[in-house]
Each structure stands twice: as structure tokens, then as C-alpha cells.
């Protein structure tokens, strides 16, 4: 029985035990969509460079049997050091309250779905917003799969005029007690008028057993909002991640930033979909990808400009060593009505070995005439002269290279607004590049 059949049959089995709640119809619709379409394959344009075969062949456990426990010490290495945050911890798909600080105040809520559904007000909100973002293309299959199966995740709601005082950290652990585990967490972020929130999301497995995470995040931003979302992908080389993020900006003057830092994992696919449904919006997707071994990361972005006077920026930096494979597939669609759009797309890549592969596909589809849309894509190597310059000033070759790599990423790193997070990412970059450097202070010296 292949994974698709297994998923469908187990859906129907478990459905009997699930209450026929408000989400029942959505689940039914989602599973029938998935049943019809199945998993994507390389013949499809948006999956041209990413084969799912190696990760779909595993016999995944869909519902982990027993609740595994972790201690504070287990999770400590994966927290952002020195950062005061609201922490939500999930282990093998279950919310762990004693490790978390769920919060519900007058101005905002950050908690698990299971807890939020017990509150009448939050339940109504979830029912209103859950799975309602519809991108232009027909439904996404991984999102449908997640909708059908998801049982837990994070619900964040920020009331009007509120600024969440600390970043919210979402940590999804898999303990690896099963041979292979499929996790399908879900995040719903609803930000009301004039509100602001910062979120850090991370998926982490704790041993070498195969894990596949199919995560969906929905961000709904109203007027004058600021959403700053960071994804840290530094998982074990046996774990894979399909990360789907849907952004709906329906109020004027909102800004949504999504930063993706991909260093770990076996196969990572980031689907980012943004719909600009109001005016004077800013949608920014940025990413740093540093790969080695047989790693594969595919950034697939889609920004749909549906209204005039908006801007979108995409900036992705990739460095690929060994036999790794990096993909950037960006897509900007400007509707006829979306005049004065400012759309920008950039993908810069460096290959560090002769077996590494980089693919870039920055696409523009434009139906409005008064727009400023451009994209750039470069692939090349480090400037040898610059390297020599650093070496001649006493910087060892390896460090000099790392320094240049770091400099290559600055346009992405400079927009990280949480200093502790930036320090953490700097640390990952230096360890990924095999040097012991504190880039920030090195650069200041």
C-alpha cells in the first residue's frame, strides 16, 4: 500500500472517532481533493526540480501511539538563547503544556488549537478563519492533506491596537520513537487592525529516524498590521519538511515579512503564497540557504498582486556544497487592476562544489502596464581578488571564505529584527561553514 492509499484509508477510519464539528465539511472536501490529485510529481511545472520519491517511500506512522515526554533540558539546545519569549512546545504532534507558556490576555492569545477550541470566542475565530485563504491556483495538495489530518497546532490572535510584547516561539519536536513519523501541524495567525506580532517557528527531530512534517501556516493580516515571521530549518539530515505558508493581507497598509533560514533537513520544500487583497501593502519573503551533503531545498514563492499600489520583495541567497541541490522558483502575478505595483525578485547563488546543482526560475506574469517589476538572478563564485585581499591581511582562507559568505547574506540578515535570533542564526551559519566566528563582532573589529 503506498502512502496515498494509506493516508486515505486511515482518514476514513479515524473519521468515525472525530466529532462532526464545524471543520468536518472542510476535511471531507480536502481529502477528496487529495484523493483526486495525489502527490505531485516531477512532470508538474512547479515540482520540476524536486522529487518526492525518496521521502514518500517511507512507511510513516500517521498517529504516534503514545505521548512521549521531554524535559526542559531536552529542548534547551533548540531555544533561541537569551530570548525572552512566549514558548509553545509540541512533542510528536501533541501540545506539552508544562514546557510551554500559552497566554491569553485581553489583547492577544497564543495557544494551542486544542486549548483555543475550548474558549467560545477563540473557537468562533478559528471557525471563521481556518482554511479560508484561497490562492489563485486551485487548492494545494499538501494543504488539503494537512486540513484533513491536522489535530493540533498554534492559534495566535492579536486584538486591535495591540503589540505583542515578546516574540512567540513555536517548537515542534519529534522524538523519533517511531521508525518513521508523519506530522501535520497547523498554525493560524490572525492579526487585527493596528496590531503587531513576531513569531519564530521551528521543526526539530531528536534522533535519526525519518520524519516528514507537512506544516501549514495561515497568516491573516488586517489594516496597519506588522507580522514578522521567522522559520528556522536546521533539522537532522533524515528529516524532511514540506512547509506551506499562506498570507492574506486584506487590510490596507499592512506589512508581512517571512524569513526562511534553511540549513538542515534532507528535503525541504517551502511553499509561500501571498495574496494582496488591499492597497499599500508590503509582502517580503527572504531566505538564506546553506546546504551540504545530499540536502535539497526548494523555495517556491507566489505573490499575487490583486490590488493597486502594492509592493513585494523577494530576496534569496543560496550556497550549495557537496551534492546538494538548491531550487528557487518564484512567481509574481500582477492583475490588470494592480497598477503601480512594485515587484522585485532576486535569487543569488554560489556553488561550492562541482557536484552541487542550483536551479532558479524567477517568473513574472504581468497584465498591468503602469508597474515596476524586475527580477534578477545570479549564479557565480566568490571573488578571488577579495579572498586574496582578506588573506593578505592575515585572515586564514577558511575564515576569509566564511566572512565573504556571511557578507553575501547580509541583505537578508540585516532585516532580522530580533537580535537574539540573529545571533543564533549567525551561529548556525558559522557552524555550517565550519568556522568558529562571531561574525558581528568580527566585522566591527
Amino acid at each position, binding site marked *: 500500500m503506498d502512502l496515498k492509499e494509506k493516508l486515505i484509508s486511515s482518514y476514513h477510519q479515524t473519521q468515525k472517532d472525530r466529532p462532526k464539528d464545524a471543520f468536518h465539511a472542510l476535511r471531507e472536501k480536502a481529502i477528496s481533493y487529495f484523493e483526486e490529485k495525489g502527490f505531485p510529481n516531477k512532470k508538474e511545472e512547479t515540482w520540476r526540480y524536486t522529487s518526492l520519491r525518496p521521502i514518500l517511500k517511507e512507511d510513516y506512522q500517521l498517529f504516534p501511539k503514545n505521548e512521549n515526554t521531554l524535559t526542559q533540558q531536552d529542548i534547551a539546545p533548540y531555544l533561541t538563547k537569551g530570548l525572552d519569549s512566549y514558548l509553545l512546545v509540541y512533542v510528536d504532534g501533541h501540545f506539552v503544556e508544562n514546557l510551554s507558556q500559552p497566554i491569553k490576555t485581553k489583547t492577544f492569545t497564543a495557544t494551542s488549537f486544542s486549548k483555543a477550541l475550548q474558549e467560545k470566542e477563540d473557537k468562533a475565530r478559528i471557525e471563521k478563519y481556518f482554511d479560508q485563504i484561497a490562492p489563485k491556483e486551485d487548492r494545494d495538495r499538501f494543504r488539503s492533506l494537512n486540513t484533513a489530518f491536522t489535530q493540533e497546532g498554534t492559534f495566535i490572535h492579536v486584538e486591535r491596537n495591540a503589540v505583542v510584547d515578546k516574540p512567540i516561539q513555536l517548537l515542534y519536536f519529534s522524538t523519533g520513537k517511531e521508525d518513521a513519523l508523519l506530522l501535520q501541524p497547523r498554525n493560524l495567525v490572525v492579526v487585527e487592525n493596528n496590531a503587531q506580532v513576531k513569531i519564530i517557528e521551528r521543526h526539530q527531530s531528536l534522533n535519526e529516524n525519518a520524519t516528514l512534517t507537512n506544516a501549514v501556516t495561515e497568516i491573516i493580516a488586517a489594516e496597519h498590521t506588522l507580522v514578522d515571521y521567522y522559520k528556522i530549518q536546521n533539522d537532522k539530515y533524515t528529516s524532511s519538511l514540506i512547509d506551506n505558508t499562506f498570507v492574506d493581507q486584506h487590510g490596507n497598509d499592512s506589512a508581512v515579512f517571512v524569513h526562511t533560514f534553511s540549513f538542515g533537513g534532507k528535503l525541504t520544500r517551502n511553499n509561500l503564497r501571498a495574496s494582496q487583497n488591499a492597497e499599500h501593502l508590503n509582502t517580503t519573503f527572504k531566505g538564506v540557504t546553506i546546504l551540504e551533503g545530499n540536502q535539497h531545498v526548494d523555495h517556491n514563492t507566489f505573490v499575487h498582486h490583486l490590488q493597486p499600489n502594492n509592493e513585494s520583495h523577494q530576496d534569496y541567497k543560496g550556497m550549495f556544497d557537496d551534492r546538494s541541490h538548491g531550487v528557487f522558483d518564484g512567481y509574481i502575478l500582477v492583475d*490588470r487592476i494592480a497598477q503601480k505595483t512594485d515587484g522585485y525578485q532576486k535569487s543569488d547563488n554560489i556553488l*561550492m562544489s562541482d557536484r552541487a546543482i542550483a536551479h532558479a526560475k*524567477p517568473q513574472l506574469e*504581468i497584465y498591468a*502596464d503602469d*508597474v515596476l517589476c524586475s527580477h*534578477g538572478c545570479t*549564479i557565480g563564485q566568490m571573488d578571488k581578488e577579495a579572498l586574496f585581499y582578506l588573506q593578505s591581511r592575515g585572515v586564514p582562507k577558511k575564515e576569509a571564505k566564511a566572512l565573504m559568505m556571511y557578507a553575501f547574506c547580509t541583505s537578508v540578515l540585516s532585516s532580522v529584527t530580533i537580535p537574539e535570533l540573529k545571533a543564533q542564526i549567525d551561529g548556525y551559519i558559522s557552524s555550517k561553514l565550519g568556522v568558529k566566528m562571531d561574525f558581528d563582532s568580527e566585522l566591527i573589529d
Partner: protein
Amino acid sequence: MAKYTEEDLKKELETQEYEYGFYTDIESDTIAPGLNEDTVRLISKKKNEPAWLTEWRLDALEIWKKMKLPTWAHVNFKEPDYQAISYYSSPTKGAKYNSIDEVDPELLDTFKKLGISLEEQKRLAGVAVDIVMDSTSVATTFRKTLAEKGIIFCPISEAIQEHPDLVRKYLGTVVPKTDNFEAALNSAVFSDGSFCYIPKGVRCPMELSTYFRINQGGTGQFERTLLIADQDSYVSYLEGCTAPSRNENQFHAAVVELIALEGAEIKYSTVQNWYPGDKEGNGGVLNLVTKRGICEKNAKISWTQVETGSAVTWKYPSCILKGDNSVGEFYSIAVTNNHQQADTGTKMTHLGKNTRSTIISKGISAGYSQNSYRGEVSIGRNADNARNFTQCDSLLMGNNCGAHTFPYVELKNPTAQLEHEATTSKIGEDQIFYCNQRGIDEEKAIALIVNGFGKEVLKKLPMEFAIEAQKLLEISLEGSVG
């Protein structure tokens, strides 16, 4: 260089509907519509072809039957009914001519209307023209001069008779029968086209030129061009196309194969102004073309194209940079107006070391048209120090058209360097205002700005073509200013 005055433009704009839309009444030897083994055998027999070629065609037909028209291109059209097309149409009187006097006067008249009368051509810049009208080459001029240098420039049907070894060696080596749907169809039914061979070390003394026209209604044009430049030779080849106004979509599926052997250089320029259909988008030519060249060591292939015509254009002149130090270039201007659709670009495949390629693509869309650039740059594992530069700019005129860019970049070698940049914009009001201030009216200002926008490509065209191309740009965009 331009003695082209405002009066000329005014006159042209008045008749700009489609000035080449006339129909020559020449008795044609047209076979019944339909496509099956018999049709292919019949074409082959009419052409008096050797058995190997008949087999080759039949093989292609079998391959084609198993294929489907691909749908990935950003164009929308009704797939032609392949059984309703007549696959062979040849002017009956068009046997062989040694001098121009023997040519059917009516035919000569056609060329006069096109502004490329043979006499004029003969007197002019030394352009040898191999005219293909509805698939059969009617006349080839300057063959004697070329023959002295050992250059073979003739219809491919003749080359099959006279130089079968050369044809057999190279035919289908760059665009194999299995390549794509249209190429397979073309391989099965191609009726004629040009063949050119430049011997070792020869620099072709004149620009070689072919003029294509689709004349008979309901016929498809399936021409096949095979151009071989032997070691260290040089040739510049021009191709121009026009088709008369016809309501039904005419179908054009050509294959062009270029082979540049060690150290050779081929410059291939196209000006395409097939009938684009009327203002409502009725009729027009379906132009689905496969063009590809292969470069051996130190060779260079340069494609330059100006696309202003056709209801649907689907064309990607490509280079396979197989040899070390080889160079590929692609310069393109595509203009679409009214309901035209163009999906065009190139594919640069870097296989050899130190290979270089440049892509400059300018798209201009007006009216209700859709204009897409689709290109791929792939750098193979062994292509050390490969270099690519890509620039594609789009200009939008009016708010009902679309401009799209679909670039693909594939890199497998760390020493390669490539850059891609694209911009989309419209003609600035300040630019037009500046021109108005200086007494240039809006229409003329647009023409001026568009010409400037396309300058990088236009300057790559041979002189005679450059002037024609500039005129074409102006004509195609007439009336697009709101």
C-alpha cells in the same frame, strides 16, 4: 542610413492594415488534405526522393502519431485539424529557372509588391535570394557566384538529389525527429526549404537570404532549413517571411538546423511578419517553429530575430554549445499588438569549457496581446568557466495586454557565472512629453522610443533588414497609443 521620412511613415500608416495581404493567383499543384502514410509517400515521390529519406519520413510520422501538442506555452489557440491541411502545394510552373526572365511574371509581381523584386535584389547589395513560395524554391539567384567559392546554396529538395551524402549526414542531427510534436510533423511532411553548405575556410561574400510566403489557403508550410558551416567558415543568413491575408489560421511548422563546425561562425537573422490576424483576432498564422544550432570548438552562432507578425508565435532559437570556447548569442525583439500572442525565447545549453552566451530579449506588447519570454540557460557538469548574461526587458502599452517572463536557470558547475535580469515597464509620460516639446507628435514619439528600446537588437541586424525591421516596428504598433 534612413532616407525614410515622415511622409513615408504617414503613407505607410494609412495602409498599415496588412500591406502584404494579397493573394497571388498561380496555378498550384496541391494535394488533397489529410495526413497518413500515403500522403508522406506521395510527397516523397513527388520530390523524387531516395528510399532512405522516405523511410525517415515514415518513421517521423509514426513518432508524431504518438505525440501530443504540448500545452505549457503561454498561448491560447485552437489546435489545427491536421487532417484538414494540404501538405503539399507547389506552383506548377515553378520548375527550374536559370535566369529571371523565365520566372512566371505574376510571381515576379508578387515579389515586387513585397518590395523585394529579384531585379532589384540583383542590383542591390549583393543579396542572393532563395525564394520559397508555398514550399517549393522557385528561384535561386547568385548561385553561380557562390558556386565558384564552393558554397552550396539551394533548395533542400535539390540538395537531396545532388548532395545526398551531406544531407544524410546532417539532417536531423540537431533537431531529431523525436524532439517535439511540431518537429516530428515537419520531419514527416517537409516539402522544401533551404540548404546551405559553406566549405572549409570560406567566408561567404554576401548575405544569403530566403523569403518565405504562405500563399495557398489551407496549406501548411513545413519548410526545413539545414545550414552547415564547415571549419573556420563564416556565413550570414537572412530569413524573412510574409503571408497574405487569409481568414482561417494558417499553420507554419518549420525546422531550422544550424551546424557550426570547428571555428565556424553563423549569423542567422529573421524578420517575421506573417499575417497577424485582424483587429478582432480572427485569422492569422500559427507559427510554431523549432530552431536550433550546434557549436563545435571555437564556433559561434548568433540568432537575431524581429518578430512582429503571426497570430501565435511559439519559437525558441537555441544553441547547443558543445565545443570548448564556443559562443551562442540571441537577440530578439518581439512585438505583439491586437490579439497576437507570442511565446518566444531561447535555450542555451553549455556543455563545453569556456563557453559563453548572451541573451538580449525585448518584448513589446500592445492592444490585447500577450507576450512572453521563456528561456533556459543550463550549464553542464563539464562546462568550466561558462559565462552567461541574460537581459529581458518588456514594455507594456495600454492596460489590456500582458508581458511575462519565464526564465529557467540550471547550474551544475561551480566555476560558471551567470546573470539574469529582467524589467517590465511602460513608456514614461515624461519621455513622451519631452518629445512633444520638441515638436514630435505622440505616434512618432512612441516609434522613436520603441526603436530606442530595441536598439541593442536592431543594431545586430544586417543593414537592409534593420531598416525594414524599424519600419515594421512602427507599423505594428500603430494605433496602440490611447
